[in-house]
């Protein structure tokens, strides 16, 4: 946005953002700000909704009573985050005459993307552990940055989400630790899952910027919707998790991975970014199957939503 051509209203809005004021749903906001928020929050919401499915595959199969309880609660939390976020997005879309049905339609038609990690296959129980520990760990790093987001309803939702994700990380880490300390079969299952998930975890943060920020990123940084680059977040992930992964006796499938002792910067093998683009455009290993699962059950439940949307008073 060329700041020399701003209207008074726009200039005042940016001044509020600059001084750290939080914007509420009913406050005036530039259309561009609204669009950036909807893009981000609707994507986050459908990622939570679709993100429930990979782990859900293991919910009915979780090995012990304790794990059955924990993973049911965990996946239910993810659905709850989807609900919280879709309501934040709905408030923003109201002036456009849109609601959550439009968000779901955009998901099914491919207009709205969801996170790369949730397109991946989850063939073993260890995948449930790796998702809880490292995918949620990566998500907290990204979401932690947005806790200071200028849009107050999103920041408030994130506050709760990030707190719950803290438990999810412990839950996932606990599954991984049990496998790492377990039988050779359990350790092999965990190592195999890490090998498969590693590239997807690096992709989660998005391509490195190489000092070239995208228009969306620049706008979001200007609006204080986000404050860090993809690469900064990925570096944080390495610093937080690489040593923990090693301490479980696991091998990270990247022999080039190392940290510069002086700059503390990690060097690593880039994942295949073309593959990343194929995955997020719904051509990942499980994209079609999961979208099919979600859209079929969504369509078949249409009569149920109609029932509660327009129900006469019931006693």
């Amino acid at each position, binding site marked *: 946005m060329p700041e020399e051509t701003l209207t008074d209203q726009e200039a005042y809005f940016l001044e509020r953002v600059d001084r750290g004021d939080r914007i509420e749903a009913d406050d005036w906001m530039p259309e561009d700000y609204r669009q950036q928020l909807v893009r981000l929050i609707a994507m986050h919401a459908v990622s939570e*909704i679709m993100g*429930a*499915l990979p782990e*859900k*595959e*293991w*919910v*009915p*199969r*979780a*090995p*012990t*009573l*304790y*794990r*059955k*309880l924990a993973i*049911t*609660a965990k*996946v*239910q939390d993810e*659905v*709850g985050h*989807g*609900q919280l976020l*879709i309501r934040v997005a709905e408030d923003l879309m109201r002036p456009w005459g849109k609601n*959550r049905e439009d968000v779901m339609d955009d998901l099914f038609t491919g207009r709205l993307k969801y996170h790369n990690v949730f397109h991946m296959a989850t063939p073993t*129980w260890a995948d449930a552990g790796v998702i809880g520990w490292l995918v949620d760990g990566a998500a907290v790093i990204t979401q932690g940055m947005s806790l200071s987001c200028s849009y107050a309803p999103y920041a408030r939702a994130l506050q709760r989400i990030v707190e719950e994700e803290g438990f999810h990380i412990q839950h996932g880490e606990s599954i991984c630790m*049990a496998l790492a*300390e*377990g*039988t050779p*079969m*359990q350790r092999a299952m965990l190592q195999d899952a890490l090998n498969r998930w590693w590239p997807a975890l690096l992709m989660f943060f998005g391509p490195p910027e190489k000092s070239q920020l995208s228009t969306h990123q620049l706008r979001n940084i200007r609006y204080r919707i986000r404050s860090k680059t993809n690469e900064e977040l990925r570096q944080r992930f390495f610093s937080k998790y690489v040593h923990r992964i090693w301490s479980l006796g696991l091998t990270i499938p990247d022999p080039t991975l190392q940290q510069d002792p002086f700059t503390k910067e990690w060097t690593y093998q880039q994942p295949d970014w073309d593959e990343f683009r194929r995955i997020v455009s719904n051509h990942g290993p499980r994209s079609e*199957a999961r979208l099919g*699962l*979600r859209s*079929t*059950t*969504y369509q*078949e*439940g*249409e*009569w*149920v*939503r*109609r*029932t*509660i949307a*327009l*129900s*006469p008073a*019931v*006693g």
Partner: protein
Amino acid sequence: MQRWTIEEAAANPERSRLVSELLWQLADDDMIIGFRDQEWLGLAPHIEEDVAFGSIGQEEIGHAALYYGLLEQLGYGKADDLASLRTAAERRNSVLVEQPNGAGHYLESPHYDWAWTIVRHYLHDVWETALLGGLTDSVFEPLADAAGKILREKRYHLAHQELWMRTMAAHDPDSRGRLEDAWRRVQAWAGDLADLGPSGADFEAAGLCQSVESIVGRYHVRVSEMAGALGLPAMECETRQNGRCGEHTEALQQALDTLSEVYRLDPTANW
């Protein structure tokens, strides 16, 4: 009345047998309905409902874990083994709760039936409420304590299913038709639900539960009142197999294969 502690029940073979027979019914009903609830997770017709149903499923499995925990303390083996490794013939759940949520498998092309799910869960909740109400003064102290606690949660489960039944009945001919269809179909499977099995009279005589007649009667009164309020026909259930005697359908074996898939890889491992 002298109440039995775990140790007192465990030390007396006849007491232990009676307590365990009742606990298998409670534990297996909740384990299997909780499993059916888990299959819905992420797929419910409405996102708020997904959250609600997720909670209900979690609580059902939590209750099952409590009952299996009591059986473990009575010396019947590790709770996780009891939940995952017992054969279908050893299970004492009602055949109603083992029936699938609809056509298809939860991982592939599920065509789940919401009206059936609600009506089936409603009947389970009415039965469990009636039964637990008859256990709050049980001679077996840990069960009396558990019944009081669990009843507080069952109130919400029941309120949830009743609200859905009323909503489906009142909304339009389509939703009402689906409710009526589900109401008719559950009758083929619900015959063994309100049944305490072959030892029912012994449970009563030992003071493990109140009179079987009053417990079963409370269930029937509540279901009839609901039928009356919604204009549904009186329920006349069939008993094809009696799950309380270990008779089950193929659906239970499929559920057990799935719920124990990981655990069976190595039941001696720490998961």
